[in-house]
């Protein structure tokens, strides 16, 4: 019985392979021969141009990924959903904001040979886990929101050849927060807390170094696990060091627990609280509750964007309603446009509509991006993949009601830019 079943199955498999082989070979009358070092993507006359987005789409930090995804979608809408008369197909892969999630998503995406280019990831951890796989598969990804400095540093290694970003490096963000704390708030004793993610770990270290350079003291640098819920013991340890300023550039889960519990710890009733772009979302207000009022968050400075940000917000409002979810939507929009601008330069279009995309040429074209007029600024990519135009601002949360979240509101923004 099993033998017969096996026989039938193998015949079926063979037959389907034959059919598939004939089907794809028959109509192609190729005049273009691919000589690219990384090979080419062939897009048939009726096939869509396939790009992918990978980032965090579930869990406590889903707003971060969803926000960027919307930026990509709006960019595609602005192209009329078409490239060279081919429709644009966007697939998404959830990378869970962890190195493991990033590795899984990258492996899945790397097997799909129809993908031309990628936007992502959301969290630096995801990139650390997945980038080697993508680079090896000949793919190139542009991240709208990874901020860990080392990702675009000269010693980042060959695995990162396929990696660029439109987000700022935290070398800028940590410095900005340190200046804000020391010069504007006039605090001299600061403590930091991170959640073990590569993003938070690196950012709090940049802050600590810069803060010390300015003349301040770092009284405590603590860390918790990413799934920790009881923050009171670690906050008590921090309280024993007597900080005036507590900086926790973490993600939403830990950020919410810390904010909700910090005022309950003796000695921290009046400490000033600050976080960064990882918790620049209404979800922090949901998770952190009333204590979020008066908290400071650093983020890209929306008012320093040189492009048509107001126009983007209007499109966002029309398509999704409500406020933006997080802070990197414009960066995602720019990343998508950079990808397609490079694609326009290198794509070879046949008379019958077939498109060939040489992978290495596409990658080189993205790196060659120069003075690109994006929303976030005039973008030029460095040889190490840094395309961002970093201007950091610090915002203050004016109201702890999540429904009031609207950083781009003209009259009554929440959070509101207070520095510089």
């Amino acid at each position, binding site marked *: 019985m099993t033998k017969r079943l096996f026989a039938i199955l193998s015949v079926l498999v063979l037959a389907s392979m034959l059919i598939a082989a004939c089907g794809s070979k028959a109509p192609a009358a190729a005049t273009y021969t691919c000589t690219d070092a990384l090979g080419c993507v062939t897009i048939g006359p009726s096939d869509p141009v396939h790009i992918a987005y990978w980032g965090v789409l579930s869990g406590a930090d889903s707003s971060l990924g969803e926000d960027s995804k919307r930026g990509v979608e709006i960019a595609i809408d602005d192209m009329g959903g078409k490239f060279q008369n081919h429709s644009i197909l966007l697939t998404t892969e959830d990378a869970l904001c962890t190195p493991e999630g990033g590795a899984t998503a990258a492996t899945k995406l790397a097997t799909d040979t129809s993908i031309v280019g990628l936007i992502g990831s959301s969290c630096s951890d995801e990139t650390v886990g997945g980038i080697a796989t993508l680079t090896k598969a000949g793919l190139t990804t542009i991240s709208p929101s990874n901020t860990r400095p080392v990702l675009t540093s000269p010693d980042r290694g060959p695995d990162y050849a396929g990696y660029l970003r439109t987000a700022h490096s935290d070398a800028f963000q940590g410095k900005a927060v340190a200046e804000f704390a020391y010069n504007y708030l006039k605090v001299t004793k600061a403590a930091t807390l991170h959640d*073990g993610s590569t993003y938070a770990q690196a950012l709090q270290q940049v802050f600590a170094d810069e803060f010390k350079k300015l003349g301040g003291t770092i009284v405590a640098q603590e860390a918790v696990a990413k799934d920790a819920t009881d923050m009171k*013991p670690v906050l008590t*340890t921090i309280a*024993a060091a007597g900080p005036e300023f507590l900086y926790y550039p973490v993600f939403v889960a830990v950020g919410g*627990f810390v904010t909700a*519990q910090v005022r309950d710890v003796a000695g921290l009733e009046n400490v000033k609280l600050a976080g960064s772009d990882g918790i620049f979302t209404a979800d922090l207000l949901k998770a952190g509750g009333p204590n979020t009022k008066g908290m400071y968050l650093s983020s890209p400075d929306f008012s320093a964007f040189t492009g048509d940000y107001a126009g983007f917000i209007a499109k966002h409002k029309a398509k999704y309603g409500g406020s933006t979810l997080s802070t990197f939507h414009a960066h995602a929009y720019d990343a998508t446009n950079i990808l397609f601008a490079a694609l326009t330069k290198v794509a070879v279009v046949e008379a019958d509509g077939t498109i060939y995309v040489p992978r290495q040429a596409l990658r080189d074209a993205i790196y060659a991006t120069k003075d690109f007029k994006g929303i976030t600024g005039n973008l030029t990519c460095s040889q190490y993949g840094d395309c961002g135009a970093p201007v950091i601002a610090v915002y203050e949360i004016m109201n702890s009601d999540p429904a009031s979240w609207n950083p781009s509101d003209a009259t009554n923004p929440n959070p509101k830019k207070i520095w510089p």
Partner: protein
Amino acid sequence: MRTSFGERLLDLAVSGFLWGFRILIVLVVVLGTFLTIRAGKYTGEQWIDFVVFGISQGSIYALIALGYTMVYGILRMINFAHGEIFMSGAFGGYFIATWLTVSGFMDKYPALGFVIAILSGMLVSTLIALLVERIAYRPLRGAPRLVPLISAIGASFFLQYTFRGFFGPGVYAYPSITALDGEWMFFGVGVLKVQIIVAIAAFVMMGILYSIVMFTKIGKAMRAVSEDKDVAALMGIDVNRIIVSTFALGAAMAGAAGVLYALTYRQINFFTGFTPGIKAFTAAVLGGIGNIPGAMVGGLVLGIVESVGPALFLDSLGIPRPYQLKDAIAYIMLVMILLFRPSGILGERVSKKA
């Protein structure tokens, strides 16, 4: 009993390693504690805070651990979906507590509102646990032990993602009850009200459970079934009914724990049950699985060690970021207890059959 020289050597090496490990851990703890106390970084008040945080966290672990231990005592099975039962209780309590807070009832009658929130959490948890028992466990009652275990893991995922489907991946902020804000002073030391109330509520729940098991007819029947299912059935005990009530009792405790947990930490999502579930399972093993007072003791010990440990004996040893090692402390303690006392702190009355 012929043992070769090589085997004896291996035995010696293993026991030598185990002894070395024990001595090393004890040394770390003693040395670290000594150095910390000498350094005098923390005030007496802060030490009391650490212990209080530990007790309130530990009493929640204890409540959840009861469910693991009771089900194990009766079915010799680890109910891995128990963490999700806990989470469903937190969600059940969330909707009622929010509604009570918004309608102003909570401010008028805080005590009554608090009890209603806990009861609703217990109810939701119990209903879900009964469904899980009926669908995922009962049909597998006669199967080998591994089978219901796998089924339990499946049930756990199913519940997690069902809640995700219904309520989304985001977090829900628990309403803050004004009556629970602030501190009470004890001998000049301020202790958070919510911590005290959570601990008291947990102890009351555990007291109720313990009296049910020890002093009622159904409790006696439970003990009989856990001793020997077949003989209990011969004595005219409806084994199915007893198993169902065990699940219900354990789940009710988990539901109460869910609401108490959420009142303390003020946010929940569909994944909330995972870590406390694992920790409570650790607590149950720590106290001696199958043993009800053991689960209570295990939970409290685990909570306190987690809270006090990093500050007490890791901080002064120059280990950076000791709080990241909180879980490591918990699990190393589990290993230590199992090395010194393989049956857990209070030991299990191991039935001859097992």
